[in-house]
């Protein structure tokens, strides 16, 4: 990549693959994923941390990739939607999103799924109100919200069933 005179070297792991990359210090994690690593499943909706479309996991926690400087991800372990499942081998949450129609245009969906995967590991409690609150940082302009809640609940309940079994 040509560009800025000032370049920084970072090493990070994305979906299990280690990358050593020279970056423009202004680069966000979101633009690094999309424009340098061609991981375009993570979307840019607002670039201001207001819509949630760019949600990814850094070291196991959900973060907004547009508000995260790539330079601060040196040594980080990043997981994106491409690291969750594939069209041929879906993660159960992806299956549940399809079954419950938890999306329409699909643009916010990567962020919704990454957010939900993290939320399922966070201490939110089991009821719909808690899941709605946990998922309210991810805007779906098509309005699939009740279906998203249903999809997350299905996976949460089956995980709970698995633990109790």
């Amino acid at each position, binding site marked *: 990549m040509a560009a800025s005179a000032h370049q920084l070297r970072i090493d990070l792991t994305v979906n299990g693959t280690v990358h050593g990359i020279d970056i423009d210090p202004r680069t966000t994690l979101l633009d690094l994923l999309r424009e340098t690593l061609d991981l375009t499943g993570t979307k840019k909706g607002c670039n201001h941390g207001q819509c949630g479309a760019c949600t990814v996991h850094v070291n196991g926690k959900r973060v907004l990739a547009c508000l995260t400087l790539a330079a601060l991800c040196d040594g980080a372990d990043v997981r994106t939607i491409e690291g969750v499942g594939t069209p041929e081998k879906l993660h159960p949450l992806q299956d549940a999103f399809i079954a419950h129609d938890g999306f329409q245009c699909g643009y916010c969906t990567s962020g919704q799924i990454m957010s939900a995967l993290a939320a399922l590991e966070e201490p939110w409690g089991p009821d719909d109100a808690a899941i709605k609150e946990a998922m*309210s940082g991810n805007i779906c302009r098509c309005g699939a919200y009740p279906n998203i809640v249903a999809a997350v609940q299905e996976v949460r309940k089956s995980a709970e069933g698995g633990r109790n079994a």
Partner: protein
Amino acid sequence: MNVNSTVIGKPISRVDGRLKTTGAARYAADHRPVEGRPLHAVLVKSSIASGRITGFDLSALQSMSGFVRFVSHLDGALIRTIKNPVDGAFAAGEEYTPFENDRVHFVGQHIGLVVAQTLEVAEAAAKAVVVDYETSAARIEFADPTAEVRQPDLYNTGEELQVSRGHVEAGLVEAVEIVKATYTTPIEHHNPIEPSATLAVWDGDHLTIYDATQGSVNDKNYVAFGMSVDPKNVRVLNPFIGGGFGCKGFTWPHTLIAAAAARAVEQPVLLVLSRKDMYTSCGHRPYTEQEVTLAADADGVLTATRHRTQSYRSLVGDHVEPCGMTTAMLYQCDNLEVTHSVRVLNRPSGTPLRSPGEAPGTFALESAMDELAEKLGMDPVDLRRRNHTDIDQRNGRKWSSKHLLECYDRGAEKIGWGRRKAPGQWRDGNDLVGLGMATACYPGYRMPTQTRLTLDRDGTLHVGVAVQDIGTGLYTVLAQMVAERFGTSPENVRVLIGDSDLPPGPLAGGSMTTASVAAAVDDGCRALSEKLRARLVDMGHTPGNEPLVIDGGALRSGPLSVPAAEVIPTDVHEIVAEGGSDDTYGFTGGVETDKSFYSFGAIFAEVRIDRDFGIIRVPKMTGVFDVGRVINAKTARSQMLGGMTFGIGMALMEETFIDDKTGRFVNPSLGEYYVPVNADVNEFDVEMLDIPDYDFNPFGARGLGEISNVGASAAIANAVYNATGIRVRHLPIRLDDLLEDLPR
């Protein structure tokens, strides 16, 4: 039509679901040129509302490593002059040609484009461009007395905007109760989560564009015109679009600018609009002021109706928010006057936003109906029944299919309308509770559409048409339609859309795609069926009169079963048939018919309002819709949820503020323009009557993308009145509208 279909109407999961849930679906900004990487582009926009550009200072850019080029009107004729917003071949959101001259008409107008090797450099360079202006007087304030006022004759559908019948003054004299009130709706923005984006790739004089557009064919014709190339040399690809809601409907200047820049720098250029760009680059719903007069006799029969809408347009865009179109059609009333006027202002251009006219118009009309019911001491549902008509009031035609009274009945039953109390009288703990309702309606439109149907040697069917799935479920609906016609499973159908090289279809707007493709698919399947039967006869078979079934890799007709691989000669690989319909319905100048086509529905809302803080919540909304045959129960329900969610936003949250001095939008971000989030949405109860409308198309479907948003804001406003006794005549309704007067 097989009414016991195993395919049509079933809640089949989206066929594109695996791509969308894994990040594998590629939207405009996700595509890459076949070779190399695109250059990145960032728009430079005017910061003044009126005047001319006297110069650009680019000195800070030249030293930036990775900066490639700045493009503006100073580059000469990069783009061919576009004289009309509608050129016959295309409809554009604005009638001006980008970079044509030094004139500035509104804040946010595109005046330059920075192209750089990386996005970071392009963004820094765009910020570093210093623009010198000579400002001139701008008309920004809505009430500016010097603004030109126009009374446009027609909306873009061809429908009349100035309607008069009978004698309104005489009707007012007959009345025992009259409501006369002014309702306002704010500037609203579409805010699809995908910002508009264009990747332009030239190969000689051939141009490929990956564009976030609701209309690939329209886009192709616009860009071909602006670039002075044969439309055959332009291909627009839009396999996935991240929502549109109208702002990607008519094509906009940024697409042309990206194409022009790519030609100028002789490299692929990717232009992704920022969220802030989205507020001034591709339209909004303009502010409306609507004076509604409703007069009724003692029985509640309307004796006069008047609906005067004032709105505005920009200097370069001709959108009119047609709020009164519903009023001219819906209720029986012999004395009626509907007018629309627009002020010409130095503001960004308006454009259709999900149910243009119907959404703000029914807020006013259906609020006024609620006020009239209150004055008459009538139940609001009864008032609507009293004025129900089976005749289209605009032209005296019968409806092709209208079951609105059933919608009222079912909706009232489902929401528990009988629980409703007098205004301000229903308390539950610290909450004031209320119920409200409104009528929903949206025209049935259909446009000429062609399709290509293909059977390959595996026995797989393919359907191709240049339409697009903006989230509506069209991929799945098309698979279902073809599967139905050949007695097979949707899994056996491959759907090709989102490519302007396919047989032409309409843009995704006006809730018309399903009805349009229905007629085309029906004809395409007939054509393929005929070809296949002829082929079977050529092979020495005698297919019976039974419908041709294509399933399990074989063609069957009655007892006959022949593998597709035998039917299709090895040297051709596939049998292709084309079909379609040239008919237009619902637009002026369409097919001559003695019927009118419209969808209807009833929306009911329950609100709960905190007595201390005035916080408004919507625990439940019920929508019952008469939208013809439902093709897919799952995706149809989702569209209705989405429309009602849009309605909650319109009723309680959404508003763009403009600064009257500078002409700038004050809150162009998702942090300051509030849209509903998951926690804002509660129970939705959606029912569709599912009564086919075969006069409209062979699958009996009408559109449903927009009707679900119509009436929702009035139903909520009427519920707020019922809960509190406070009538709010503007949107959005916020707690500070209620706080001072809440009943204790």
